């Protein structure tokens, strides 16, 4: 039986405020609260809230036969909790139906998998815990930032205890092969992979309301007939998209919600079902290994990481950031650790991309130019780095510091143990004293 596997991505970065170099050392708050609140509430009203309601209706209407999955970055979760808690409530309700799966990803929607394996592991762990705390389910499927994937990442993910992962069905990797099967990682055969069907996903995300597209208008009936017409051996159709597709990228007047509502009915008519990524990966055996020596993602025509790592500005900013990783992990300051996460969001580096020159600046960027983005980010990072260095003397290197901290930590434990001992000794002494006094009194 053919099944459609929907997964929706939700992410919003903590955008930085205008931070001039004269703020360095004086101002340690980096975020543009007004813009972040404004943007998030707008998206929530246009997309998340109506979409949650619609999905809940669909799940209830089809008695659990309609299923979807979400991946919500940690920074997005935090913003939703602050600015649009009703969206979190919506996800909770969806989670309770048992037909909605939550995936795990990097907490900060970061590029840590490419720069700092330890940070990557920490963030995934952190995110999985957060999802469990909020929605009461332990994620079993891994989704890396922007579907970034390569053979090394596959090994890392498997070593963290995950056997299921999703990524992009990049044409230059798959070649003639179809994304509508389950694959396994070449570097770690026990890791099963689910691949995005780019064509069908992008038909909905980008082409749905495009008048000049020869398939316009896209109806649910037509869409399902395409899936039905595929060879019978192809069973999983992975429609991975930004959740904002529903209502924000495709505005509600384009009919995107009606399309989604009609989709299950036509699917069930043609005996096409729905499943979550973990079900798809459990129910199918991998048909082959996928080897990805150079990194892929779901972005741009090239499906590579050039949108975040395409120029010198981006590389140097990322290097400067991850150089601090080890030191930050030794720190205990809570605000510092928060800022560390927020500064890692891939978006900051996306804004520095010069790939889109000429075709107009990226519509998502809050900056006038990539240089502006770099400049602002580096100023913030400079201040952040001084704060990190101020935590411990700069002259001590990380290894030494680590051992010193361990010593201090151990000594603390030792002191506590001795204190406890002392207490018991004093306690018994006191008891003895009391008894002796009693005896004396009797005498």
């Amino acid at each position, binding site marked *: 039986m053919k099944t459609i596997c929907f997964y929706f991505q939700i992410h919003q970065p903590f955008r930085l405020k205008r931070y001039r170099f004269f703020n360095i050392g004086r101002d340690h708050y980096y975020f543009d609260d007004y813009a972040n609140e404004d943007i998030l509430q707008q998206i929530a009203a246009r997309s998340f809230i109506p979409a949650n309601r619609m999905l809940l209706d669909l799940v209830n209407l089809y008695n659990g036969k309609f299923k979807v999955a979400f991946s919500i970055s940690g920074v997005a979760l935090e913003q939703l909790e602050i600015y649009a808690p009703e969206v979190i409530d919506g996800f909770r309700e969806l989670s309770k139906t048992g037909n909605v799966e939550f995936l795990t990803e990097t907490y900060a929607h970061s590029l840590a998998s490419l720069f700092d394996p330890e940070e990557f592991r920490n963030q995934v762990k952190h995110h999985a815990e957060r999802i469990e705390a909020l929605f009461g389910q332990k994620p079993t499927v891994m989704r890396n930032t922007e579907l970034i994937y390569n053979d090394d990442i596959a090994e890392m993910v498997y070593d963290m205890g995950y056997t299921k992962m999703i990524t992009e069905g990049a044409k230059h990797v798959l070649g003639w092969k179809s994304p509508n099967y389950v694959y396994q990682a070449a570097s770690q055969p026990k890791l099963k992979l689910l691949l995005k069907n780019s064509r069908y996903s992008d038909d909905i995300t980008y082409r749905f309301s495009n008048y000049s597209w020869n398939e316009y208008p896209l109806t649910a009936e037509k869409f399902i007939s395409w899936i039905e017409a595929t060879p019978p051996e192809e069973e999983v159709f992975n429609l991975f998209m930004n959740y904002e597709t529903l209502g924000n990228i495709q505005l509600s007047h384009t009919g995107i919600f009606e399309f989604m509502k009609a989709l299950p009915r036509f699917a069930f008519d043609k005996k096409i079902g729905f499943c979550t990524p973990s079900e798809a990966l459990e129910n199918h055996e991998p048909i082959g290994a996928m080897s990805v020596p150079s990194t892929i993602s779901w972005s741009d025509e090239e499906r590579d990481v050039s949108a975040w790592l395409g120029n010198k500005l981006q590389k140097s900013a990322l290097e400067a950031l991850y150089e601090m990783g080890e030191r930050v992990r030794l720190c205990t300051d809570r605000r510092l650790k928060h800022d560390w996460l927020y500064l890692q969001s891939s978006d900051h580096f996306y804004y520095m991309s010069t790939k889109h020159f000429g075709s107009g600046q990226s519509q998502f960027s809050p900056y006038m130019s990539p240089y502006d983005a770099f400049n602002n980010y*580096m100023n913030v990072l400079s201040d952040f780095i001084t704060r990190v260095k101020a935590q411990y003397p700069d002259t001590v290197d990380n290894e030494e510091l680590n051992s010193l901290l361990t010593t201090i930590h151990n000594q603390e434990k030792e002191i506590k143990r001795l204190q406890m001992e002392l207490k018991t000794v004093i306690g018994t002494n006191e008891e003895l004293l009391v008894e002796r006094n009693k005896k004396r009194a009797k005498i």
Partner: protein
Amino acid sequence: MFGWEFPPHILGGLGTASYGLTRGMAQQPDMETIFVIPKPWGDEDQSFAKIIGANATPIVWRDIPWEMASSRLEKFMDPREYYWRRDNIYADFSYMHTNDLGCIEFSGRYPNNILEETNNYSIVAGVIARTYQFDIIHAHDWLTYPAGLHAKSVSGKPMVIHVHATEFDRSRGKPNPIVYNIEKDGMDNCDHIICVSNLTRRTVIENYHQPYWKVTTVHNAVDPLSPEIEAIERISGVHEKVVTFLGRITMQKGPEFFVDAATQVIRKTDHIRFVMAGSGDMMDQMIRLVAERGIAHKFHFTGFLRGKQVYEMLKSSDVYVMPSVSEPFGISPLEAMQCNVPSIISYQSGCSEILENVIKTDYWDVDAMADAIYSICTYPAMAEHLKQEGKIEVDNIKWEDAGLKVRKIYDNLVGGK
């Protein structure tokens, strides 16, 4: 073409731009250019255009022996041409002040009697228009509009005017009415207007009331550096980064904003120095301002730089800043980019419309400017990226392409008639 300046004897951007364009257009195989200037010096490059001096064109018939004509004019032109031109004198100008050859003397600069000179220039244009065959008249800036119009009325050929700057730019919004009238008259009566930027195009449409379809933007370009200039090495005795302002120190160029930004940066850092190169009517005021701010220990004035010195200054800089308040195009950031110097320019300059690999700020946004200066001097990736990408970008801005756009306009005019 009617122009006022031609390299190597140039006083401003006008000469460079009209030269570049002419040269770019000479790449087209079926293009022949006659370039009229008030006063040639004899050392102009005539390989791609024929240069005619207004001061070698008689307007009063004088009986000159061949020996005299050739000894006086050989340096500039074929003496026979003198006689051809003499045959086309069209009215009696003997009341005018002329020299022994029957020609008017021109300064070729911007003297106080500039209006008289433009008028004389247009009288001469009448003779030239009758002597030579041509299909299009192209006049560069208001000084030559009357001459162009005269040539048009004599020959009936279509006329294009090229606006390198308007009186509104030069005067920061308080135009001289006489100059304005000459400009307006030229624009009203020509067949097409070429502007060097959209900014200028807007001024022409709004302040000179021209229909938008008559006005086209053709952005300026830049000539590749000569090997001699390429070879100039960085000269700098200081270990600090050098931030440079280079241009006339006048209201239009916004020097006070540069000083303000410098003040912000110098107060906060100690690895950056500032240089204001050039001269102008606001120079003394700027020196006073720098002293008042107490930043004179890191802020230097060079005075007027000429020729090669300009490039020596650029090559010794780490950042080039052009905070112009109103700049029709502004070719100097392109030159800085050619020298691998990252540039910061104002949105109010025409070149910001085409440049990508520069930092743009509003001229009044001193904070942003200071921040950009700090960033380029502090984060090596920024400077490196701007240097490399800027060089690649500017090497692709060619006069040849600008020439093709102008050609298209010509073709429309000639074909339409």
